[in-house]
């Protein structure tokens, strides 16, 4: 832990929190992926795309202009590691995700602002945020890896694309948001 941070640190925390949001479906385990051809991100890209990660996922859904976090969280902005309500920046983030016990720096790394951190201090890329989510949500993580939790698209017998956890769940407020349903069917008596 580095020293004291100024009020500005708050700014750092907030973007980091936003980033944490996309811990959804990154591609990082090989063993469990089925023995079928590895699934590169999009439909039929060349083989080199495979290196994107163990799980083909879309890029994290950052808010515009929020990443890289180090744009603002640089040397000029001292880190304040004191848990507090953010006011100087990122005050739009309402944490509804075990907020009694956690705050920004539990998931966002204080020293490397462009990275997330696991409970053990391991740095995690935003593109692999599912690893971070998987620390607590191990059952979902297990299901996600085999395509049972969350959505996989593509070919049932071939290449598939995952979604990151954060594509569906706002990491700061993960409950799935309600949506407008499509119209109900026409009742039989109204079909001519």
């Amino acid at each position, binding site marked *: 832990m580095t020293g004291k941070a100024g009020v500005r640190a708050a700014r750092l925390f907030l973007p980091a929190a936003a980033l944490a949001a996309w811990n959804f479906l990154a591609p990082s385990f090989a063993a469990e992926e*089925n*023995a*079928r051809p590895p699934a590169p991100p999009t439909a039929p890209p060349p083989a080199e795309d495979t290196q994107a990660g163990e799980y083909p996922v879309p890029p994290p859904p950052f808010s515009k202009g929020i990443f890289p976090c180090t744009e603002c969280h640089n040397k000029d902005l001292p880190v304040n590691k004191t848990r507090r309500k953010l006011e100087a920046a990122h005050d739009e983030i309402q944490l509804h995700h075990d907020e009694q016990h956690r705050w920004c720096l539990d998931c966002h790394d204080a020293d490397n602002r462009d990275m997330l951190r696991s409970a053990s201090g391991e740095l995690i890329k935003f593109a692999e945020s599912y690893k971070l989510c998987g620390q607590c949500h191990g*059952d979902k993580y297990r*299901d996600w890896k*085999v*395509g*049972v*939790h*969350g*959505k*996989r*698209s*593509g*070919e*049932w*017998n*071939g*290449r598939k694309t995952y*979604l990151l956890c954060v594509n*569906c769940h706002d990491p700061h407020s993960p409950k*799935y948001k*309600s*949506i*407008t*349903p*499509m*119209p*109900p*069917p*026409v*009742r039989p008596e109204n*079909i*001519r």
Partner: protein
Amino acid sequence: MKDRETPIVKPNEKPAPEPPGHLTRRQFLAVSAAGAVSVFLAGCTKAGREAFFQSRFKELTGKDIDKVIARLEKEYSEKYGRAVSVSAAPAAEGVLFGYGLDLSRCIGCRRCVYACVEENNLSRDPQIQWIRVLRMNKERGVDIMESDAYYNPAQVPEPEAFYMPTACQQCRNPPCVKVCPTKATWQEPDGIVVIDYDWCIGCRCCMAACPYGARHFNWGPPTVPKDHLNAHMHYLGNRLRPRGVVEKCTFCIQRVREANGHYPACVEACPVGARKFGNLLDEQSEIRYILREKRVFIFKEDLNTQPKFYYFYAT
């Protein structure tokens, strides 16, 4: 003619000699019928005649299939003014399709219903929808009699409800197939129950037999807007249907039977990932994982239809 050679007579009784130049009643009927048929066929186009004499799809081989496909592609392309492809891809070896639907995830948004309509060229008017989403009360559990398919709140999911989408359950023991008098519907080797629209006579016995309400009848000529036509068709799936035939979900046979088989349209459309699809014979598939790890139930199990459509609770 034939009767004359083998008249129906009692044994030991000589047939009464017929006055020369007279037709028997039987001969008269046969000649009239033949005449009527030839007049009818003479009035048909060549394509119409081919369609009239077309064998069952299952009995067609090689060149005959190509001919039928070419005829259909021409017909549809002319009707819609754009190139249409009709596939006749057969089932792949070692594949048995299975479907999973996570009732703990479905939010009842009906995105699947409309994706299916688009993908499968379902009639917009009169409206046909292969997927029906039933709203159920959490307190009552899965109770079909109390369910509502016409719910229309501003937002879903509603706090007191859960949703159970239904469609063809792709039974291993399909009652609809048993009752078809023309064998126009059958189960393919990959488990998909299909219909040959050219052999369906529209008797709707299958609709009466299906306990899931999964079969739908074209009461009127189906309408598909030109700019919404899915030109990628399969003979046994989403090709254009005429009035007077029955149709049903085919697991998007035109998608799943491609060499790189895509997920069915409903799977791709589901915003919450509640819909799962895969090969039941592949231990690595997600559907097998579900059967292994989750609590699964099948719909109306007591009817012994043995669906390949599994409802499950992921949590």
